[in-house]
């Protein structure tokens, strides 16, 4: 149960970081950097992720196509941080990896938590606006008898 909760929290952190505003996450990473000590960059690159999909007729998994992503992998002392974002913004992925590592190491917890809450709220609000527009296109069907 504990592991599930931890994983759920980690998932929320990563997904919020990946979808957060690029300039704001970079600004946060810049602010955190002096507190993090020596950073070893293991990976900072663009690449492709193959995206499979499940056919709804026969249940077969097939490849829909590839997605361009930016990836970063860092080490702070003994702690690793990882970032991957759809697109080619290497700095966004790097900022994500640094914040992931900082969060795992328990550094600047209040800053990181406040950032995640603020960004998650913005993402949720934007999504809600989109879905309210989608809902406006729902067909209310009348049947004549």
């Amino acid at each position: 149960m504990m592991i599930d909760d931890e994983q759920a929290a980690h998932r929320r952190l990563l997904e919020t970081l990946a979808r957060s505003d690029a300039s704001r996450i970079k600004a946060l990473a810049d602010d955190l950097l002096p507190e993090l000590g020596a950073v070893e960059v293991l990976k900072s690159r663009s690449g492709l992720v193959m995206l499979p999909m499940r056919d709804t007729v026969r249940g077969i998994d097939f490849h829909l196509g590839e997605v361009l992503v930016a990836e970063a992998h860092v080490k702070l002392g003994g702690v690793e941080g990882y970032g991957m974002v759809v697109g080619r913004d290497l700095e966004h992925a790097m900022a994500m990896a640094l914040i992931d590592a900082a969060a795992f190491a328990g550094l600047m917890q209040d800053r990181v938590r406040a950032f995640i809450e603020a960004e998650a709220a913005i993402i949720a609000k934007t999504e809600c606006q989109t879905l309210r527009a989608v809902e406006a296109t729902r067909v209310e069907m009348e049947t004549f008898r």
Partner: protein
Amino acid sequence: MAYVAARGGERAIEQSQRLYRERLGTIDAARVDEIGRALPWLVDRIMGEASLYAPELAALALTQSGGDLYEAVLLLRAWRTTQPRLAVAEPLIQDKLFIHRRISAAFKDIPGGQILGPTLDYSHRILRTDILEGAAFDPEPVERSAEPAPPHQPSLASWQKAQGLVVDFAREDIPKDDIPDLTREPLLFPASRAHRLQSLARADTGGVMALGYAVMRGYGPAHPTVNELRLGEADVEIAHPRGTVFSAGRVRVSQAEVASKAAIENIDLGFCATLGWNEVKIIAGGTLDLNAQHATKGSPFEEEFFLSHTEPVEGSGFCLHFKLPHYVTFQSMLDAMRDARRKQAAKASKAVVKEPAE
């Protein structure tokens, strides 16, 4: 006749490329950005055919090629080969798509309801020439509902399977790294279903439409109705080094199931999906998938026929290569033609010499 090496034309080639690019003018980031914002449907179409989801690069390819779609797809496919494959994402499951549009033409009351989303399906197609006279067209804002739509919609096919209307085929889980992949292995026939659907996903929209349309007009046995069509966004889920599976962001995808109207015992369904939002391709592709099982050799809905002839880079490349110098082959054909004529003339002159017996 032997092959001969030839050279020349370097200056002409250089100047022809300059002439081509001169027509396009200066290309800068602002122009690419504007094309990306102004032509989202075209960007989606190009990404689907290139089999590469990268909206910024697709807009760049369109800008650089001046809107020559095959050239743009080729640019993207070529660029893709410079990038390493980092991972295979978790398979997309229909129920988890973030839905913008979801309709059925076969069933009015589908679970979850009919949601039109962004579409001009029911609009008048009127060219706004007043814009050319200086008027601006500002779209009216959407009157948003008080409540949001559910982000996910239930699968119609799953409901139909539960009702016994559609065959619920047994499925076998295979590891995602073992899914057949056309970018790493050739397309052989009969193709696996994974290869067929991947091939359709990256197929040329116009080609799929033409062959699917041929089937719809009566060259195929199963006349289609859209069972369900979805435009949505899919999470690209990958694994963190510590094992946490998370979404690295979303991509636009479309998918359609197409039902046969000739149902007797069960409803037969065809399926097609692609990266980006592209409805004509998935409806036509689903129709081809639906009809393929009934195909005779050489018909437009036979798998080998429609998959071989809708690959955009191979098709356009083969078509366009015929404009490149074929002097040797053509000279050889001319020699053969002249030789045949000479022989024919000689034969005819002999026939003239021969007098009929008196």
